């Protein structure tokens, strides 16, 4: 086809684009992803039995806030990664905040008088935590990739890592409702490890799955 003919054809199809199209797409992906992750968590391991009581524990809110913040910054990263020419430095720098906060809190708890260090770090579920976070995250990972494939990522590995970061944190957020661990050191180590694993999976899948 001649390029001039192509321009004719394309300009004949200048349907209006509603503003906020990207935001709607990402909202749909977040809702679908978290619903999927919740379904996996409920059917695989179920919520903790004392969930109602746990909602008054500060430890519960600590891990919810930590994973929520990372998921939010991860989503911001996905949104920037999906737009050609957009900078990703600000969302990447913002990630330092929740990481710093949980590290600080973990340090405080471990340096408290009479702190049981191994117990604070290892809890009772350290062997399964990162793996269960990863499995819970998979539907969110699929949803984030689905959204990115409709956008225009130009740095595929980075975009995949952003999707993994969001999904890992969304999975961890959902996993909070199952897990009975509430010590900050445990969260800082094992939740973060699970999120990092999903980020790595996303980075690896970026190149093969996000090409357009």
């Amino acid at each position: 086809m001649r390029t001039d003919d192509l321009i004719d054809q394309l300009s004949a199809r200048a349907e209006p684009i509603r503003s906020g199209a990207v935001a709607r797409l990402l909202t749909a992906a977040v809702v679908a992803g978290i619903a999927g992750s919740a379904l996996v968590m409920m059917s695989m391991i179920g919520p903790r039995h004392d969930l109602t009581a746990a909602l008054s524990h500060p430890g519960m809110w600590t891990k919810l806030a930590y994973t929520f913040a990372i998921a939010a910054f991860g989503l911001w990263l996905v949104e920037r990664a999906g737009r050609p020419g957009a900078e990703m430095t600000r969302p990447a720098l913002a990630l330092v905040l929740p990481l710093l906060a949980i590290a600080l809190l973990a340090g405080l708890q471990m340096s408290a008088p009479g702190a049981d260090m191994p117990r604070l770090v290892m809890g009772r579920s350290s062997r399964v935590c990162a793996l269960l976070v990863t499995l819970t995250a998979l539907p969110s990972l699929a949803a984030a990739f689905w959204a990115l494939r409709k956008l225009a990522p130009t740095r595929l590995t980075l975009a995949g890592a952003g999707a993994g970061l969001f999904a890992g944190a969304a999975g961890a957020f959902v996993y909070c409702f199952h897990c009975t661990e509430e010590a900050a050191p445990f969260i800082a180590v094992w939740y973060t490890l699970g999120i990092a694993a999903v980020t790595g999976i996303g980075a690896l899948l970026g190149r093969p799955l996000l090409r357009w």
Partner: protein
Amino acid sequence: MIAQEAQYRDWMLAALTGDAGAYRMLLAGLTRHLRSYYARRLDSGAAEDVVQETLIAIHARRATYDPALPFTAWVYGIARYKLIDEYRRHKRRATVPLDEAKDLFGHDEAEEAIARRDVNKLLAKLPPAKRQLVSDIKLDGVSIAEAAQRSGLSESAVKVAVHRAVKSLGEDVNREGQKRQGGDADR
């Protein structure tokens, strides 16, 4: 800021509201930049295909343009991505030096054509033998040795001839520039 930014951004914003006329102007304008950008980086056969692929990508992904960001950077991001994709497909070098949107919009086919025309006009002032030497060596990149062989002159004679010819052309350009400036001052 890239010179075309304001104009292209206006056309893009109009196109996003469904203005086909503005969209056509935008695509036609971008095509000139894309052609020149890819022609300098790909084989001539592949270049036009990638131009078309990029236009289709711009169309299909136009919802990803964020009006808060420069439009030229958005287009450049797509153009560079399609270039890297083309290199990968042919297992050629997989990295593109980190250049900027200026690279896409700095060169313009029309501007290049004007520059070429100016050069030809200048060359026409030279006697034919010298014109051949200058155009071979300075424009086509023929080696001095080869040009000497072709013209039957010694290498040092070729060097001297080209040097003098370029110098005289340079003086011509300067003289014309001064004349023009003088004319402006008179008015």
